[in-house]
């Protein structure tokens, strides 16, 4: 049975809106982030960034910087202490194929903003001041940072990135079917480069504990990844490296891989034998990973009633010279729509930038924007309502995966419930047909899709003699609510109050779990916690049965329930024993278990697993000012069981807001002559502010899924996918202008 998992047969906390258990720590300022942990001898490192994008360093002069009182040491490639030699040692748990970037490795410059020196001083201000005195001479070469200019150099990545499905082989006769189709359209789509920009800039504090031991606080979405990386790069024993990160000030993917500030902080701490913190500045948040640009073309051939006859989706994404970053951009088109003649291709092109990385719904934000805009164009070309068009091409099977059925797919409910809430039936499809005062009004919709995944994860549960329970593992709560949902799951499994459960995360001394990403944490860590708690429950039950005159003496485990801190016979609440009594009688002061959550192989052999959504957007466009206001969004989501409607809703809200950023605001602008991002600050890189966000309505439709015992499918990404297409489609409906290159800024509306 999927719908419930507490032994009582009904959930108490799971499925109900619960406030975040980490709320009090966050609203009082007590929650500490990686760059905020103190140490008695803490030194501060400040990074000097390269001013050219390509070439080499010809001279280094650190004399003036080193002469500043309070400066301890200036590290450059000329005096860098030894670290591991082989590229292999620098590959973290989620690295794409290639040779990972090494800060201060040699005189070569690979990208603008590359760290070229680290100034370590007694205090932050001295380090910052001295960093300005480091003099570097460069020999600059011409950089190539324009994906369009690199189009002809694009290639199919020879080595595939782990976990990223390459496009399937084409099927049918896409070209012939396109030629024969009565309705054809072929267009190019593009999304600007985006930077994650979590509110907390990346920072690492390495506390030197003496005797070759370190405690490291790192801004990372899973501390095990940092620990493995540091052990490998610096030749340290994992037992000597405790990595922690109880709170993360946002990640969105930028904290999946250990970033260069961790390497630099560790390098300095080891060399100086003292504690070192390196915090990046906001502008240095443009000096590492980003969501890559992709050149996309979609060609659709259809019958006059909208049925797809041919579907082609090609994409060229950017990567760096040192790694082959890959994401799933084009497969979504094949996953979403039934079509007998399909070609999907994906290539990458090398640029003189840092390696792009996963940013919230990597690849899907890019590719689904394109296909969902194209489908809207097809709706207009055929005169079929956009929802009806999607229903006519609906599929229950994943054609990109041997036509396996979906484990669950309540997308039709998303369409119907979302349309109902939005009032879609009142829409006049004619562009420019709706007006309110000086503003044109437009309504658009799109589908969202994201993979539902699970990763091998450990977790433990420890029940103490006072009836308090601790659960946890090493993954991070990146703001998603993981502390809270794990507390709910643990409380329900053992029949405790949430107040009696403490969840610990972000510490390598806890059972190992992967980075928090891909929307897999609820399923993975949640299952592991539930299993560990069940194990503890069984241990407590055995003790209870062994008690003298135990009311449970002749009762089997499947006939008892865990509720109110007691083990009771189901349907006979008076007949039971408290957990505390059972432990006391058994003479134990703690019951402990460690368990693993892992993907269900049988399920995965039989089914494909995705979350889906339908997004409806209303825009108001002032044509004279070129201004687009997004006044209303309805996001209807099918993502299996919802553990906590309150935090779940927030995840979708956050995804939608970031999708609004994608659609209307976010754009990291490269000056291709300099190979540099020009708008590297939050004044010029616009993200949505409070005044940009009006009403967002979130619906979770009923969906039962059996990929894991909890029935959850994950929520971190689905809120953003498709949102930009719904907005672009609404802008078309309002104005009659089809904008295929995001973001939709004033200049494009006025053009």
């Amino acid at each position: 049975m999927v719908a419930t998992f507490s032994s009582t047969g009904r959930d108490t906390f799971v499925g109900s809106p619960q406030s975040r258990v980490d709320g009090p720590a966050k609203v009082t300022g007590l929650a500490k982030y990686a760059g905020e942990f103190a140490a008695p001898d803490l030194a501060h490192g400040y990074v000097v960034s390269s001013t050219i994008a390509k070439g080499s360093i010809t001279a280094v002069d650190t004399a003036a910087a080193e002469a500043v009182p309070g400066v301890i040491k200036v590290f450059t490639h000329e005096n860098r202490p030894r670290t591991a030699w082989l590229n292999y040692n620098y590959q973290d748990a989620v690295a794409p194929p290639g040779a990972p970037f090494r800060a201060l490795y040699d005189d070569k410059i690979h990208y603008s903003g590359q760290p070229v020196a680290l100034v370590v001083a007694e205090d932050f201000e001295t380090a910052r001041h001295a960093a300005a005195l480091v003099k570097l001479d460069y020999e600059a070469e011409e950089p190539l940072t324009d994906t369009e200019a690199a189009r002809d150099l694009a290639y199919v990545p020879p080595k595939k990135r782990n976990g990223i499905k390459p496009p399937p082989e084409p099927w049918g006769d896409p070209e012939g079917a396109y030629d024969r189709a009565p309705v054809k359209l072929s267009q190019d789509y593009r999304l600007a480069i985006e930077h994650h920009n979590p509110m907390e800039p990346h920072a690492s504090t390495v506390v030197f504990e003496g005797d070759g031991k370190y405690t490291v606080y790192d801004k990372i979405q899973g501390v095990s990844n940092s620990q493995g990386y540091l052990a490998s790069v610096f030749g340290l024993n994992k037992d000597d490296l405790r990595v922690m990160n109880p709170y993360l000030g946002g990640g969105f993917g930028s904290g999946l891989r250990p970033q260069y500030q961790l390497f630099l902080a560790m390098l300095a701490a080891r060399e100086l034998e003292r504690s070192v913190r390196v915090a990046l500045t906001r502008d240095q948040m443009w000096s590492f990973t980003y969501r890559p640009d992709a050149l996309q073309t979609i060609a659709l051939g259809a019958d006059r009633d909208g049925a797809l006859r041919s579907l082609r989706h090609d994409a060229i994404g950017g990567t760096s010279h040192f790694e082959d970053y890959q994401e799933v951009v084009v497969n979504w088109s094949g996953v979403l729509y039934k079509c007998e003649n399909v070609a999907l291709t994906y290539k990458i092109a090398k640029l003189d930038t840092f390696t792009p990385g996963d940013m919230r719904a990597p690849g899907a934000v890019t590719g689904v924007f394109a296909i969902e805009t194209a489908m809207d164009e097809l709706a207009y070309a055929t005169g079929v309502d956009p929802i009806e068009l999607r229903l006519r091409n609906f599929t229950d099977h994943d054609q990109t995966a041997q036509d396996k059925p979906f484990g669950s797919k309540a997308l039709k409910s998303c369409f119907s419930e979302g349309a109902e809430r939005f009032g879609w039936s009142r829409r006049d499809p004619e562009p420019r047909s709706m007006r309110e005062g000086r503003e044109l009004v437009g309504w658009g919709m799109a589908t969202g899709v994201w993979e539902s995944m699970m990763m091998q994860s450990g977790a433990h549960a420890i029940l103490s003699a006072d009836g308090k329970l601790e659960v946890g593992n090493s993954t991070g709560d990146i703001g998603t609510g993981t502390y809270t949902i794990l507390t709910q799951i643990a409380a329900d499994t053992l029949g405790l109050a949430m107040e009696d459960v403490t969840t610990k995360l972000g510490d390598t001394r806890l059972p190992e779990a992967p980075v928090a990403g891909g929307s897999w944490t609820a399923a993975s860590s949640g299952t592991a916690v539930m299993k560990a708690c069940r194990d503890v429950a069984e241990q407590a039950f055995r003790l209870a049965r062994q008690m003298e005159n135990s009311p449970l003496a002749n009762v089997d485990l499947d006939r008892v329930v865990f509720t109110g801190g007691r083990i009771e016979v189901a349907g006979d609440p008076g007949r039971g024993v408290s957990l505390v009594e059972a432990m006391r009688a058994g003479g134990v002061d703690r019951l402990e278990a460690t368990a693993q959550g892992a993907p269900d192989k049988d399920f995965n052999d039989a089914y494909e697993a995705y979350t889906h959504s339908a997004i409806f957007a209303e825009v108001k466009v002032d044509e004279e000012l070129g201004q687009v206001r997004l006044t209303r969004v309805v996001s209807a989501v099918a993502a299996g069981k919802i553990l906590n409607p309150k935090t779940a809703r927030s995840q979708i809200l956050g995804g939608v807001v970031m999708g609004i950023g994608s659609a209307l605001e976010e754009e990291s602008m490269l000056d291709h002559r300099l190979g540099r991002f020009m708008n590297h600050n939050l004044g010029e890189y616009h993200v949505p502010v409070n005044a940009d966000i009006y009403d967002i309505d979130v619906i979770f439709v009923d969906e039962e899924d059996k990929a894991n015992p909890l029935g959850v499918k994950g929520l971190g990404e689905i809120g953003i996918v498709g949102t930009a297409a719904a907005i672009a489609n609404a802008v078309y409906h309002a104005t009659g202008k089809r904008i295929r290159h995001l973001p939709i800024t004033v200049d494009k509306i006025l053009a």
Partner: protein
Amino acid sequence: MLIESGSPVPADTKVGISLTINGEARALQVAPWTTLLDLLREQLDLTGTKKGCDHGQCGACTMLVNGTRVNACLTLAVMRDGAEITTVEGLARLANPGGGSNGLHPIQEAFIEHDAFQCGYCTSGQLCSSVGMMNEGHAHSRDEIREAMSGNLCRCGAYTNIVDAIEDVMQPGATQGAAR
């Protein structure tokens, strides 16, 4: 040793100032270039106030100076000699001046109730900005709250919940149930 700018101020110069921080009078020696933000975070271990950009663009460092919200990253500590400072760590005390700090300020409770944050990194600034905004008394509607809170970025996108929380404190009960 003179500092590089050619300023006649020696690098080790400290200036004596007094600040009342969350109700506690402090006599402090600070460098003239130390921001209020760095003073609190780096020297006084008051890390509740966050550094998101150090440029006055994100609002994460918002705190109350004499009841007015300011970006502490753009404020030199020496500019505020004699000022009364309230940070997120002191908000509860602000609401319960006589008692201890066990309870929370109503805005803190409302942020929890309405799930007005996710990662928590902008939260201190949002909370102090909310209190400062209410002190200003200019915002009376959701639209006005949105506008007046637009100096505080939230990358997790909790904006609608932030507005719900503020509205709830300004007009208790106004958005009850809206957080669901």
